[in-house]
């Protein structure tokens, strides 16, 4: 038994941290959010060249052929630096293609997602924001051997940066009669838009589909039988977001601990007072525990498929609670400086609220854990 990372993984962590600190420091975030892309295409290209965009893509399709645990190392670092690039979106699109696509489909799309020449995202939700099969409402109309889609997918991450979308749609009345198809951003009838977000470092928006054709060879797997693949996608999404949250929550906690050591009030550092010290200890406990769960979920994705649902739900649930608490208390334990634009505490706070609902909040996952026990 070994609950630790390999030397290669530690190396990856070190390189990622170094690159992100240099190429994408917090001080650049304000400038980046004003660009059309919302992130730096140069840095994205660099990540592609390093092979990091295709970490989990099989080598046969241009990827590094590594596992989720490796991706989690990288995501923890992008979370730490509040990296604004579409790494989660792209990784989930690639993972779903690798999971549910046939050889031709993987050959067609994966290499571009792995080398960074194209960006992928996933479009799951529409009218209702819930993570049960019946929440997906967008209905595909038969069109020869393909389908036609008209409607709006909501809460799509990086909608305007993405070149292609893995879209979930309904092809029957039974709750689980769902399908997955690939829609390209440039295809007729496709338009994407993002809206300003509270977390200005992340983009979110809608994918509008006006009579968009999904040809038979763009449908992943058998039509009407995609729910298991969608559920795996949800678990990967929950784990990936949790890994990013782990990095940013740790950064927020580190910042606050350092402030508590440095800031002198009433003649001593405020970190001497139990009113500051004890909440920090509690947050450390919560975060270390969420860390254990996130790492285990990554391991389960690679090695223990039957464990994934529970592992991912536990990880996202506790990580969401830890991140949300740390985000808020990082503000409260600082003074007024916490909510000035120049100081990063407010960025972590906003990020913690942004990531909370993605792929299900703590309430959803605690509830799901009981369902997984048949309760």
């Amino acid at each position, binding site marked *: 038994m070994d609950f630790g990372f390999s030397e290669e993984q530690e190396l990856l962590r070190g390189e990622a941290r170094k690159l992100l600190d240099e190429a994408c420091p917090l001080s650049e975030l304000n400038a980046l959010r004003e660009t059309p892309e919302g992130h730096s295409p140069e840095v994205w290209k660099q990540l592609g060249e390093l092979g990091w965009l295709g970490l989990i893509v099989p080598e046969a399709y241009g990827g590094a052929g590594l596992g989720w645990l490796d991706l989690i190392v990288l995501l923890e670092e992008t979370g730490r630096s509040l990296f604004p690039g579409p790494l989660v979106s792209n990784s989930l699109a690639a993972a779903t293609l690798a999971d549910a696509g046939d050889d031709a489909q993987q050959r067609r799309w994966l290499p571009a997602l792995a080398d960074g020449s194209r960006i992928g995202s996933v479009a799951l*939700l529409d009218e*209702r*924001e*819930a*993570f*049960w099969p*019946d*929440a997906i409402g967008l209905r595909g109309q038969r069109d020869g051997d393909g389908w036609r889609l008209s409607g709006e997918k*909501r*809460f799509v991450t990086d909608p305007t940066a993405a070149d292609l979308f893995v879209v979930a749609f309904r092809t029957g009345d039974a709750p689980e009669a769902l399908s997955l198809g690939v829609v390209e951003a440039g295809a007729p009838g496709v338009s994407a838009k993002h*809206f*300003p*977000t*509270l*977390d*200005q470092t*992340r983009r*979110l*928006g*809608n994918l509008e589909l006006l009579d968009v054709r999904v040809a038979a060879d763009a449908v992943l797997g058998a039509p009407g039988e995609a729910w298991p693949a969608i559920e795996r996608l949800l678990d990967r999404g929950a784990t990936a977001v949790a890994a990013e949250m782990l990095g940013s929550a740790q950064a927020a906690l580190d910042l606050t601990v350092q402030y508590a050591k440095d*800031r*002198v*009030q*009433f*003649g001593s550092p405020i970190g001497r*007072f139990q*009113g*500051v010290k004890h909440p920090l200890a509690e947050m450390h406990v919560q975060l270390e525990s969420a860390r254990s769960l996130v790492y285990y979920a990554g391991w389960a994705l690679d090695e223990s498929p039957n464990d994934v649902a529970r592992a991912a739900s536990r990880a996202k649930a506790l990580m969401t609670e830890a991140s*949300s608490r740390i985000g*808020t208390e990082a*503000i*409260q334990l*600082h*003074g*007024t400086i*916490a*909510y*000035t*634009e*120049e100081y990063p505490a*407010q960025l972590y*706070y*906003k990020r913690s*609220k*942004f990531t*909370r*609902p*993605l792929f299900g*909040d703590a*309430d*959803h996952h605690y*509830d799901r854990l009981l369902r997984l026990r048949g309760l």
Partner: protein
Amino acid sequence: MDFNLTPEEEAFRREVRDFLAAELPPPKQRDAAFMPEWWKKIRAKRWIGFSWPEEVGGGGGTLMQQFILKDELARARAPLLGSDYTGLHWVGPAIIQFGTPAQKARYIPEILDGQSIWCTGYSEPDVGSDLAALQCRAVREGDSYLVNGQKIWTSLAHFAKSIFLMVRTDADAPKHDGISCLLVPMDTPGIEVQRVHNMGAGGYGDMLNQVFFNDVRVPAELRLGAEGQGWEIICSALQSERSGITEVNRHETSLEDLLDLAARSERNGRPALEDASVRRKLGSFETRIEAMRLNGMRALTRQLRGDLHPSEASINKLHNCDLLVEMSELALELQGSAASYYGSGEAVLDKGRWQLAALSWPATVIGGGTPNVQKNIIAERMLGLPKD
């Protein structure tokens, strides 16, 4: 125990209510032209400065009348009473209590008439909760003081006309005894203001500044109170109604909005109002808001009897902080990912009022004396536990 009003108090409540019904349009119909007109009308009724003595131009309202007026104004969602909030709440009362006749004559009327805009110079870069440690120096030179130093988190300084400035005039005295208060025009040479943007950049409450004092010369006649009396001025407060009824009514409005949001929301794919956890939170908010109202009325009763504990307000301050944070959190949770949208676009629910709430609670929770400071006050001054 009696929660009914006397006939005189009932008459006053009716007077206020009738006036508001006749003169105050609903929030949506209030345009730019409305505010100056409104202030003129309520100034004529002496409701601006209603708690101040009549001889300085105030309303001379009794404590109960103040309570009734604030209660009715908040219920009618009336705008603030007067344009110079800082002048009316901090500077005016201090000048009434500590000012010379000349200072009163000069400053009080312009505060009441909305001709002044005051800001307060308290916090400094190394001085947060421990306010008495402030370092901004004022050295007496003949008939004036030479001020050097820096203030931070100075709300409104970028358009204030005057600053209510706390300075250290005696570096050798114990820290509480060496502080004095100066009333300084912001256009005095040597004052420089730099904006500090907050996290809701451009939005509500974005009015923080740093203020630098570089050999600023202030005539000694602009000192309020005696030299060294600054800490007493900071701690003092004129006898005015302290029930916190305005905050209570504001929370009640928020709760109504939140119930309305909950009725439109889902949790885990089911109506949010069928979720026991959401129901419990909402019930708890309602209960704590009512507790604040009643705590305020108990405090008011003691104030009327003349035995109000000076730390009593800390109890409702903690409720206020908790409610601001928890209600905005629940509202964001109810919205799901839509909570991430910001601004005035179509994707933003309820015109973004909850996002605004999530960005603006820190100004109250931290700016108003942090919860940790309030807890120390309660533990030490009300429960008698030893100081740290």
